[in-house]
């Protein structure tokens, strides 16, 4: 098993946290995992992205060129990464923000109104966790419980009161049925 994932969106959407949470969950599930951020000037003003590789065997380069899973949380990210998802891969689109979906017919597309759903939970910033939950429902990468358990290690202690909300968001995403 190996998944090459790119998480992309704008600053404030918790893009780095998505990658860290799933990486931590992968580590505690005994997988090989690497996490690599976009860094420096690249981050400023535009989209931020992080690359995560989860594998049963040793991972060479942590750089993801053609993701098996692309997660795009805003429109510029959709534009940038839509074409990069490899054939047969999965593209998760935060439809609330992108407005449009994908026209590709050679990949699995999951459109989810993550920000709207997060709004329903009372915090727009939980959209990232909703998307994560949805990925785990679509692809058997890790047990969803491992992701829930990772939060206390990847969320700074001062924000620990937010953990229950984030777990709720993961659950909501996991249970989301697009049909």
């Amino acid at each position, binding site marked *: 098993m190996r998944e090459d994932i790119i998480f992309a969106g704008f600053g404030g959407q918790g893009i780095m946290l998505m990658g*860290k949470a799933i*990486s*931590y969950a992968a*580590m505690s599930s005994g997988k*090989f*995992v*690497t*996490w*690599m*951020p976009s*860094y*420096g*000037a*690249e981050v400023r003003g535009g989209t931020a992205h992080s690359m995560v590789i989860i594998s049963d065997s*040793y*991972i*060479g*380069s*942590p*750089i993801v*060129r053609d993701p098996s899973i692309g997660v795009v949380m805003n429109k510029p990210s959709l534009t940038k990464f839509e074409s990069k998802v490899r054939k047969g891969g999965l593209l998760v689109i935060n439809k609330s923000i992108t407005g449009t979906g994908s026209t590709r017919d050679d990949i699995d597309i999951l459109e989810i109104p993550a920000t709207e759903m997060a709004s329903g939970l009372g915090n727009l910033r939980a959209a990232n966790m909703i998307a994560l939950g949805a990925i785990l429902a679509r692809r058997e990468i890790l047990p969803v419980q491992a992701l829930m358990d990772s939060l206390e*290690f*990847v969320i700074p202690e001062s924000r620990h009161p937010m953990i229950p909300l984030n777990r709720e968001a993961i659950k909501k995403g996991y249970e989301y049925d697009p049909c």
Partner: protein
Amino acid sequence: MAKKILMCGNEVLAEAAIIAGCRFYAGYPITPQNELPAYMSKRMPEVGGIFIQAESEISAINMVFGASLRGARAMTSSSSPGISLKQEGISYLAGCELPALIVNIMRGGPGLGNIAPSQSDYFQATRGGGHGDYRQIVLAPASLQEIADLTMLSFDLADKYRTPVMILGDGILGQMMEPVELASRLETQDSRQKKDWILDGCKGRKPRIIRSLLLGKGELEELNNRLQRRYKEIKDKEVRCEILYGDDSDVMLVAYGTTSRICSNVVKDLRARGKKVGLVRPVSLWPFPEKQLKELAERVKSFLVVEMSCGQMIEDVKLSIECKRPVHFYGRSGGEVPAEDEIIREVEKIA
């Protein structure tokens, strides 16, 4: 067994240094190593250590010089352009026989270059970027676990040989996260050798002088001869390298750091297809694994050196095997990272 943790390479390095007993850090911000000083600024006060954000890399390395001669385990870190500025200080550390750790999380050059990962400071690191007849031990980790292990080793080697040691990483290793175990070595610090050469005030002993100006006839040559004897000992004892499929390979890849991770996947891929390909991964870049490569040259048909540079380590490979076999090169520079399929194509051209 220690618990696995998830931190970025820069933070792993900082924590490993603290575990190894480093209690003095001075540095100046530069991407892509900023997580390292940030971590130190938080951790050093917690362990009774010193963190200083210096006014320049030049000042930082000289603060390390002062801390080291006072007996502290001391370090600085930077990235390529900042390391150029530290060269003066490194030469003085070598001339004064002072231990210190210098970390270079390499970025693209020359000049201001860019902030993307690179391996183009190999010459500077292994040849001694500063003036004079000196060497420094250069260690090149390829994983975050190795960053932790080699950082701890660096301080021991620096103290043992009274020499600056450089850890040569790149932007990927500094920024990425992967699981790592940090062994607790705090309790072993007492086993460190006592430093009987430091300046701590001349109470109960004759005053000491630490200097590198040696004007008397023959004095400087004597220092250089002493350093060379030490460098020879380091070459004899401190070569570190990893070899994959050394017994039956036709083509041997040679790569270090991040590039070696990519090459190890290439080897796995090609082996699965029945190709006899192996990998030499120098862990110590100085001393370079000359003997290992020379021995391999007896069996291997050719070498392919892969670097994130325009070709620097390749010179050491050629020197080591005395040009007995063809040595090919594949490199990407300016912050570009060689992809597995690109390297596979290069191997296929050769074999």
